[in-house]
């Protein structure tokens, strides 16, 4: 077992995780469907969303330069990072220059991707996650399992115990409102004290230099408003060309993501504003493999992704295996294409196979990323550039031999029936098949071979 397959085993064996995931994804799916049904021309809006992001990607250099010029004109500073190490070094140096040794952070996939918290810790700077779920993940020294609900693998009881152990609280109940109240008190003190904020960005407008952060809890507002210095780390694909593009994006994202007409808080700012909010603003533009993805003409549509997580919530593989199985920052269907595209096939060669190609992800994607087609394209690239997995090649060779003549085929069926009977129960093959078919049957339930083959039945009729 390797890659996705072995990591998925842990998820499949954890009934709590599977229950939580199923409950959450079922609830979000229903909410998303209702929110989308309310919009008269959702299809037109999706098409607009895809067109906006394509327009941004196909002239990405020009839009980034325009964004940079506008941020600088509004009193901000722009930094460019080729990779994770460079981005971490920039942020670390910026924090050091303020004299601070702690930062408050709002959940961001980009900083998760580059491992910013660990880099800051190595430099003696404490990074406090302020999203409730991220706080839970951080206190538990854990990893997020879902873009939207990163602590979905934690039960209320887990969280109660965690807060009592890590936050010095006693006598807590498992009431979510009470637990959220504990987090509010704990984090409020930090918001008022810490002088540097770190955020990601959902959108950045080239035309005006505006940065947009979309959130629910208010911690994003805290991190982008209260500190003296704000550092935003943004993947270069987050830029949109024009201000009016927000009109489409701010409909597509909340309805697809949490199934709300609008998320509770959306913050937009441009550079610095005298007398209001941080008086120093730094924008870090992060490549880290995005230009590699851009070079793949079919794969580049993955860069349209606005991280709504709708594709995760409809994915049968994700629902059963859980986010940790992908062993990558980006999980689910989008992770299966984005991770190898930006992070290379060496680490993620098995991910393009982590799908049944059912197509549900494409249907819900607000920016029309054709994930199944990109998956097939990437499987092709894996096979061409890195060779097909050995078991698949062996199985294909055996199949060709057996299907070659009718006699061999009938013999093989009889052999399978004899061999399969001790392995089957209730009409299903209980255990893995031996030999070259082992990897395939490890993760699939097969019907047990019938007592009589079709040909035998036809002859004895």
């Amino acid at each position, binding site marked *: 077992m390797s890659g996705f397959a072995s990591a998925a085993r842990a998820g499949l064996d954890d009934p709590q995780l599977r229950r939580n995931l199923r409950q959450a994804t079922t*609830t979000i799916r229903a909410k998303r469907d209702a929110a989308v049904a309310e919009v008269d*021309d959702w299809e*037109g*809006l999706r098409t*607009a969303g895809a*067109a*906006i992001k394509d*327009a*941004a990607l196909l*002239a990405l250099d020009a839009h*980034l330069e325009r964004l940079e010029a506008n941020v600088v004109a509004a009193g901000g500073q722009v930094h*460019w990072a080729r990779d994770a190490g*460079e981005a971490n070094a*920039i942020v670390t*140096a910026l924090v050091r220059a303020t004299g601070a040794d702690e930062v408050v952070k709002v959940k961001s996939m980009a900083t998760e991707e580059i491992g910013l918290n660990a880099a800051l810790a190595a430099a003696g700077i404490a990074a406090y996650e302020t999203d409730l779920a991220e706080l*839970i993940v951080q206190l538990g020294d854990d990893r997020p399992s879902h873009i939207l*609900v990163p*602590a*979905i693998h934690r039960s*209320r009881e887990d*969280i109660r115990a965690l807060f009592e152990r890590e936050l010095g609280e006693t006598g807590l109940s498992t009431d*979510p409102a009470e637990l*959220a109240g504990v987090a*509010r008190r704990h984090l*409020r003190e930090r*918001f*008022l004290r810490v002088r540097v904020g770190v955020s990601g960005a959902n959108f950045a407008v080239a035309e*005006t230099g505006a940065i947009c952060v979309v959130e629910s*809890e*208010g*911690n994003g*507002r*805290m991190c982008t*408003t*209260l500190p003296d210095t704000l550092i935003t780390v943004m993947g270069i694909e987050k830029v949109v060309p*024009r*201000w*009016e593009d*927000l*009109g*489409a994006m*701010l*409909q597509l994202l909340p309805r697809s993501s*949490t199934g709300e007409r*609008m*998320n*509770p*808080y959306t*913050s*937009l*700012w*441009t550079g610095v*504003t005298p*007398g*209001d*909010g941080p008086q120093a603003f730094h924008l870090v533009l992060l490549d880290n493999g995005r*230009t*590699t993805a*851009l070079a793949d003409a079919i794969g*580049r549509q993955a860069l349209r992704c606005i991280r709504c997580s709708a594709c995760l919530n409809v994915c049968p593989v994700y629902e059963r295996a859980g986010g940790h199985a992908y062993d990558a920052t980006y999980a689910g269907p989008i992770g299966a294409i984005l991770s190898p595209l930006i992070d290379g096939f060496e680490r993620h060669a098995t991910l393009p196979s982590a799908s049944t190609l059912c197509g549900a992800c494409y249907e819900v994607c607000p920016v029309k990323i054709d994930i199944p087609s990109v998956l097939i394209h990437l499987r092709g690239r894996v096979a061409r550039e890195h060779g097909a997995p050995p078991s698949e090649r062996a199985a294909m060779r055996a199949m060709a031999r057996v299907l070659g003549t009718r006699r061999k085929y009938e013999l093989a069926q009889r052999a399978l029936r004899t061999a399969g009977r001790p392995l089957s129960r209730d009409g299903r093959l209980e255990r893995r098949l031996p030999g070259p078919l082992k990897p395939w049957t490890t993760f699939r339930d097969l019907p047990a071979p019938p007592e009589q083959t079709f040909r035998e039945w036809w002859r004895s009729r």
Partner: protein
Amino acid sequence: MAFAMSAARAEVLRRIRDALGDERAPAPPPAPAAAAAAPRVADPVARFTQRVGDYRAGVTVVEDASEVGAAVAAALTRHAAADAVVPADLPAGWVPTGIAALADDPPLPHARLAQVGAVVTACALAIAETGTLILDGGVGQGRRAITLLPDVHVCVVGADQIVGTVPEAIARLAGTPRPLTLVSGPSATSDIGFVRVEGVHGPRRLEVVVSRRA
């Protein structure tokens, strides 16, 4: 550091150009037709108040500006707020007598704002379709921190400020140099056991007063 940064800038731009080759977007980019053509809302006040109510925020509709003060007072009383921070230029008469009003002038320290029971503001615009309030730091709104730290936010909306849809609001806000905050209901999380809890970090209570006439 400066040199390293400009080297990174040049290389990222070069990588983008290499990746795209001759495939360039037609300039200017295509207009998002569907987003612009979003249908108008027939009765914006009714739609707006219904949508705000869906977020479990309080809504009061009054006939004209003379009734705003009383509606604000009732909203503050509902949440037992004894004091409220107000922007220096909040219209006179919106803050009821009997409540301790603190003008944010000179600016109050964050720690002080966190102890105030409520904040009363105007807004720049509102969106009917999504029940959204938009603050742009203009008249009667103050800086962002004052609507963030107190526990109750009372926001006064004029009927003529309500637009139908998100694209209409975005179009009206084009060219605004100030930071924007879009508020759709009180802060919320579903992070624990997937149960929705109102009020994590922002104001835990949102009260909206709609005045039909100025």
